[in-house]
């Protein structure tokens, strides 16, 4: 009898361990998370506009139907990314998510404070590899450190009335998200040449 009681207690305690491990592991093993859902319909390192949310097909649950949404699925393996988003009339925001949907940074048009939101996205290692004196000119470039090499950038533009939706979508079409192809290698080479 005591042995059975002991077994149950041991089982429940072990169950607690299983619970903690599975909760921590769930974000990694989930197959229907936002990143996995968006992967087939988005291009890597490019802006893809999502279809408007409607009852029959919505790429993700709880999407706000008042927003035009575009996704840039990024992979920083080959170098930093440059993001340019023109501000729409009403409200524009850019949110950054890691591979496991942690929202590590978000900015809106007002905090960006100008007509175009311009950001550089790189991993911490790439940020550290930036030449020191480049940071001074970085005053007008906002640099975001991504905790993971891959992730999602969500660009949103609000249509305050349904009739304004085409305008909101147009402002997202004009946005871009691409590798910094030519500029950084040249800049990175120049300072070492001077010294």
């Amino acid at each position: 009898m005591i042995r059975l009681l002991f077994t149950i207690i041991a089982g429940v305690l072990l169950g607690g361990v299983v619970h903690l491990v599975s909760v921590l592991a769930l974000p990694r093993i989930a197959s229907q998370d936002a990143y996995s859902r968006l992967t087939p319909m988005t291009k890597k390192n490019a802006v893809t506009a999502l279809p408007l949310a409607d009852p029959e097909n919505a790429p993700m649950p709880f999407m706000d139907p008042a927003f035009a949404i575009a996704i840039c699925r990024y992979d920083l393996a080959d170098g930093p990314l440059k993001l340019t988003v023109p501000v729409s009339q009403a409200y524009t925001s850019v949110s950054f998510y890691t591979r496991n949907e942690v929202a590590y940074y978000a900015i809106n048009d007002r905090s960006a404070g100008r007509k175009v939101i311009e950001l550089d996205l790189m991993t911490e290692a790439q940020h550290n590899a930036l030449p020191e004196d480049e940071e001074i000119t970085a005053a007008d470039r906002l640099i975001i450190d991504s905790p993971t090499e891959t992730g999602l950038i969500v660009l949103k533009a609000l249509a305050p009335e349904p009739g304004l939706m085409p305008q909101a979508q147009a402002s997202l079409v004009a946005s871009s998200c691409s590798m910094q192809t030519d500029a950084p290698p040249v800049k990175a080479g120049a300072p070492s040449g001077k010294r």
Partner: protein
Amino acid sequence: MRLIFITLLALVLATVVGLGSTYLTATRGTDLGTLTIGAWTARPKSGTADVDPYSRASIARSGELPIGTGDGIAFSATSDDKRKPLDGRCDVVVSGVTPAARFWTLTLFDRKGHLVANSLKRYGFTSQEIIRGSDGTFEIRVASRSRAGNWLPTGGIERYALMLRLYDTPVGVATRTQRDAPMPSISTVNCP
């Protein structure tokens, strides 16, 4: 023989207890770090890098993207002020004022996060579309049949959730009470 049986029992029990509790917390959510004002609940930490593991698990399971803190905050309600679950066959009135924000949107979802089909193609309101009283307050009627004023159709579904999203708002991790964030009231007025 007895030892094997007992070990197996303990392991089976561990699996059932462990995975069962994970399933429950991932689908229903926990009260960890929630901000509740009236019938509305938000998880301000979900939009930051220090989101708790339980919220991460439920986000991964549902497949949504939480709204980032620099962007805004999402409040959801599944019951009215008297804790009665929101019923699409009843008339529900959402009235009052909202916390300071540049824009807000109020959207109706079913419990799984899908929009509800209706002939008007109206799934929610934005702060600019709403018709307000002279004192700035508003009243939205959530009902299956058309109503005068701000009518939000439910499509007659039994259970739904309302989501109020504030964009560019001071409401966030530091918000605690109704005084910081005056949320609209939700009341069921007429039920067949």
